[in-house]
């Protein structure tokens, strides 16, 4: 981009969101460096997913700012933020059920290419998209299911496709919303490996409840409660903090 790389990949300042009298995000400020691994924890209803929705633009904050690589994106639509290098996965699996795995990943690739507007040439004629989609499916170990519809595959496999669609975009900031939710121990290990393998150019912000797995992946941790940042900092410091124990770990 520009010659002077901005200090932060994602910067949130004084973000506030209210629904009538209900305050779901209260004065949240976060700063995530390029390539950082950030874990966001907090009890149910702490406002974690709401925070993600404001970062992606699905929800407009009541006040405050979201910046991506120094660019103020608070007023931009979700698709515009995607073009600035932001990508996400969903807590509730949001895939194209009737389409094949390859088609799902292809959509992830297509979203950032100008050929998505092209109306004459059949999509199946784009060999480069197909090759790239199959390479990504291979990387998540699902190449053998490439031509199956998503509705045919198991839940744990769908979680991996969620991840693959986001990774296909080679994002600079990746938001993972409970990527381990509902997985067996073996599947957790697989997904954990996939997250570990994400290139260091990508900053990863992850919401996750499974502390055993998630803490290993994180460098920094933010604890949210009642829409407020309670503790924020290096992983070990946050884990050791008495407020974390009180709010979250319940010890």
């Amino acid at each position, binding site marked *: 981009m520009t010659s002077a790389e901005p200090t932060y990949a994602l910067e949130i300042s004084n973000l506030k969101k209210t629904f009538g009298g209900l305050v779901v995000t209260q004065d949240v400020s976060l700063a995530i460096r390029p390539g950082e691994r950030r874990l966001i924890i907090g009890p149910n209803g702490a406002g974690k997913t709401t925070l993600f929705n404001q970062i992606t*633009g699905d929800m407009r904050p009541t006040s405050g700012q979201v910046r991506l690589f120094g660019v103020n994106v608070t007023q931009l639509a979700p698709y515009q933020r995607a073009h600035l290098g932001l990508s996400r996965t969903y807590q509730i699996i*949001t895939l194209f059920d009737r389409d094949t795995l390859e088609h799902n990943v292809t*959509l992830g690739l297509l979203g950032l290419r100008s050929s998505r*507007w092209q109306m004459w040439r*059949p999509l199946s004629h*784009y060999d480069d998209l197909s090759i790239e989609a199959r390479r990504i499916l291979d990387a998540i170990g699902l190449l053998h299911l490439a031509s199956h519809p998503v509705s045919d595959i198991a839940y744990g496999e769908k979680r991996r496709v969620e991840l693959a669609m986001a990774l296909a975009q080679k994002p600079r900031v990746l938001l993972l919303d409970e990527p381990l939710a509902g997985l067996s121990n073996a599947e957790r290990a697989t997904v954990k490996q996939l997250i570990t393998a994400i290139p260091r150019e990508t900053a990863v912000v992850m919401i996750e409840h499974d502390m055993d797995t998630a803490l290993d992946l994180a460098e920094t941790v933010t604890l949210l409660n009642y829409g407020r940042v309670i503790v924020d900092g290096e992983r070990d410091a946050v884990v050791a903090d008495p407020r974390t124990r009180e709010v979250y770990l319940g010890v």
Partner: protein
Amino acid sequence: MKWIAAALFAAMLALLPSFAGDFYINLASQIVIAAIFALSLNLLVGFGGMTSLGHASFLGVAAYISALLTSRYGFGHGPAAIVSIVGTTAMAAVFGIIALRASGLGFLMITLALSQVLWGLAYRMSNVTNGDNGIAGLTRPMPFGISLDSAASFYWFALAVGSVAFLMMTTFVSSSFGSSLTGVRDQPRRMAALGFNPWMIRWITFIYAGFWGGVSGLLYVYYNKYIHPTSLSTTSSAEALLGVIAGGSGTLTGPAVGATLVLLLKNYASAYVERWNMLLGLVFLFIVLVMPTGIVPGLSKLLNRRGGPR
């Protein structure tokens, strides 16, 4: 096997005038026109998930523009056709901006309201549209000096336009833009997060559907040599929607099959059964109960089941 069947069907369509009488040739022309109209509506309903109850606006307005320009303002058919299609497409662009402020039921109501406005205008502005009397005494164009006045020549003309329409709409939905469209239909939030602009995708599709709706309107007015406000009515929109749903929305051939069914019931069965609407209702009920996804998906499922019991 599939290709042979398709080739045989195409040959049968092309050779129809050599073995069918004028009544059936004319019926076939009407079917081709209704099929183009239904296919264009299917772009919205089936592939875009935008159920419109006002698609007749485009058919009717294109027909009225052409009728007025040729009968009242002395335009030739060529320029009139161009003005009519460009005008209708521009109208679709404006209607799209209004209707796409909503989705689902809201979208349906806005399209219905806009088409009702046009229908009301066609009825009430009788100094321009001749009101309830309609505009009669129109002529058919003579492309390359060939008269389209015989049933067979008009049928071939309609079939040629219909084939181009079918090919172009098929290409449209199988292109990468078509994938964006079905993606936005199924998971709009995810598509936006992936970098697609859902609104723009829907709007472009709306305009494209309006364009083909306009083309079917031109054929409609050429065929009938007459235009009446009923062409803009909700019944006209609803019949097409019925055809799309009965045939199989979101399939490539379904709307054509559905439109054929509706038209056959309307023109053929009405000669024997006075209340053909009731018959249409019963047939539609039967389809919804037995093949809820439509005739084409229903039949192909049936054939697959018989083909390989594994």
